[in-house]
């Protein structure tokens, strides 16, 4: 019985990955036969571009704006590519604010500062949770629970803050937009917070809250939305599947022995990737049966990254043919490909 995936040559990164949720973002650039990977280390972001023939890699590093080196108050919480029909942007969220770059990290096109108080308060201040929604929105979450909705023009730096959604009462952990590509889905975006509360949104000039699924006092660290189904990963190691608009629980999986740090879905095949502090990356398969309105999840594959607390895992393509993994203190992006 051959393994579903096998390990490929790792990509070396200049700095090790920090223990942050969803600490790997992947951008596939088919016209140039390249894939970009980005990993956060404290107040820097490493971007590695790897050619598909495996022959060329190049590196770039970005820093958080105004890095203060005496104390650690400009740490980056997350970096993610936002794919919009007209353009791709790289978004960095930190304790100071939100930076948006052209997709190769060459030019910063926008900076939004967070309201940072003069002296530190018990409540942390940072931005975390990034999602590109529909044609022209990028949404970013805040530690206060707010969600900033930015209106993105098809080119240039004239990005504006369209509205602030105030539904969550606790820190936003992750956000995701509907990734099936289907125009029929009512729900465009889901946001998750530290109590495990999930909010389901419809985008527009004014975003509309379609549903709020109450958490059970356990942080939801990673969330995805596919064909109207919310897939949520929790600190308890559990994965839950909900119907977004109604909140009906489809499935519950005792998936990991430690905190889940990353989920990803390959939209064309319905493969789900989950990764946790327990050193395991697991591949699952989601099947939808519209007639009976059921969603099923079955387990496909395990990969144990020995002695590593995994902090990022993403598919490299829409079919789930390959995926990359990052771990705390690891200076490489480990890659796996289907056998």
């Amino acid at each position, binding site marked *: 019985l051959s393994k579903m995936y096998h390990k490929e040559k790792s990509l070396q990164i200049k*700095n*090790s990955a*920090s*223990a942050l949720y969803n600490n790997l973002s992947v951008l596939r650039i088919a016209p140039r036969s390249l894939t970009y990977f980005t990993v956060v*280390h*404290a107040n*820097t972001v490493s971007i590695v571009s790897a050619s598909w023939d495996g022959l060329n890699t190049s590196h770039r590093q970005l820093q958080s704006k105004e890095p*203060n*080196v*005496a*104390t*650690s*108050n400009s*740490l980056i*919480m997350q970096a993610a590519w936002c794919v919009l029909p007209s353009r791709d942007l790289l978004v960095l969220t930190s*304790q100071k604010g939100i930076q948006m770059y052209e997709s190769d990290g060459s030019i910063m096109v926008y900076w939004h500062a967070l309201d940072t108080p003069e002296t*530190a*308060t*018990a*409540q*942390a201040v940072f931005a975390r949770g990034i999602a590109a929604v529909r044609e022209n929105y990028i949404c970013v979450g805040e530690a206060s629970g707010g969600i900033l909705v930015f209106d993105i023009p098809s080119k240039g730096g004239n990005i504006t803050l369209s509205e602030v959604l105030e539904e969550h009462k*606790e*820190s936003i952990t992750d956000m995701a937009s509907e990734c099936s590509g289907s125009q029929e889905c009512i729900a465009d975006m889901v946001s998750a*917070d*530290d*109590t495990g509360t999930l909010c389901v949104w419809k985008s527009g000039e004014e975003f509309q809250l379609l549903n709020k699924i109450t958490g059970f*006092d*356990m*942080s939801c660290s990673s969330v995805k939305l596919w064909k109207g189904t919310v897939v949520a990963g929790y*600190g*308890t*190691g*559990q994965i839950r599947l909900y119907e977004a608009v109604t909140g*009906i*629980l*489809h*499935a*519950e*999986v*005792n*998936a*990991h*022995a*430690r*905190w889940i740090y990353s989920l990803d879905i390959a939209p064309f095949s319905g493969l789900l990737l989950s990764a946790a502090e*327990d*050193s*395991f990356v697991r591949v699952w398969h989601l099947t939808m049966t519209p007639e009976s*309105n*059921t969603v099923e*999840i079955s*387990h496909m594959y*395990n990969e*144990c990254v*020995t*002695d590593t*607390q995994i902090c990022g895992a993403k598919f490299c393509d829409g079919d789930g043919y390959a995926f990359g993994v990052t771990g*705390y*203190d690891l*200076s490489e992006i480990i890659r796996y490909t289907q056998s």
Partner: protein
Amino acid sequence: MSSRTLPLLFLGLGGEMLYILDQRLRAQSIPPDKARKVMNDIITTMFNKKFLEELFKPQELYSKKALRTVFDRLAHASIMRLNQASMDKLYDLMTMACKYQVLLCPRPKDLLLVSFNHMDAIKDLVKEAPPILSQVDDTYRQLIEIYTPLSSGEFQLIRQTLLIFFQDMHIRVSIFLKDKVQNSNGRFVLPTSGPVPHGTQVPSLIRLFRCNGEESRRFQFQSGGTYSSALRPGSLEMFGDRVIKLGTNMYSVSRPVETHMSGTSKNSAQNTKVNTTPNPLAKEELNMLARLMGGLEGQKPGSADSGFRVNLFATDEEEEEALMSRPDELSYGVLNIQATKVQPNPNPTDYRLTPDP
């Protein structure tokens, strides 16, 4: 990131320092009354009211440099002296032990239990000294008040902040290597077996539900690990069984404390990335150090024949050798604070220490 990280880091490092010093004082047969004085002096300084007030304020974590300077001062709060090489080694051991505890905490909330293990041990050390004991009790109360209401997500943020602080540190510690909790490359072993954390289920079950909420099917998958059910949760009261062992004294059996410098790791240079020298200390860091040194004012420098030197190595020659061969990238860049009011003992007694047999 989290503004509640510093107290836990300080108590963890302080706790480990006390375990190590306690072991070295016994190993070098320092007279019990002198040993007790050293421990009491250090603990009194650690729990100085003004200093703790500063420590518990919501604030970002201090730089590695600032924290190392604090512990340099603490270690010299009494009649005991340490040479540079021994202080470096002491700090290496303290930080790697704390990194281990933070990394292996089953749940982020268990960081508090680890702190309580340290506190319990400190309390035991000063149980015969009522004034210090009441300072320690006050600190328990403060920890309970501030930390027990925090959510799991907030604890994870604290843990993530600590993990950034400890990032890229892979110093090999003899005791960890022997116990097989650390690999020869300096990385800690993360078992895929044992009890799951409290609140987590053993990975294996998939449950599917119908729209009306009824379970329609369930099946198992192979997790690849060998897990067992969670243990009961540890107590977060002033007294109680903490259940987890992280943060308890691993030196209680007398074992030599050696470290190997893993300076060849290309990532050890990354230690200095976030805090590049030479930067002045931030205002907050200076404040804290001033408070700490205010606490030291009460200590009279030892009289000529009561001071002594502790060696973290088996012999003086080893200590000298360690100083010469310490890789540059592992230097802590300790600052010489001019404002210190504590003068080093002008007549250090050459209290000859017998090397370990």
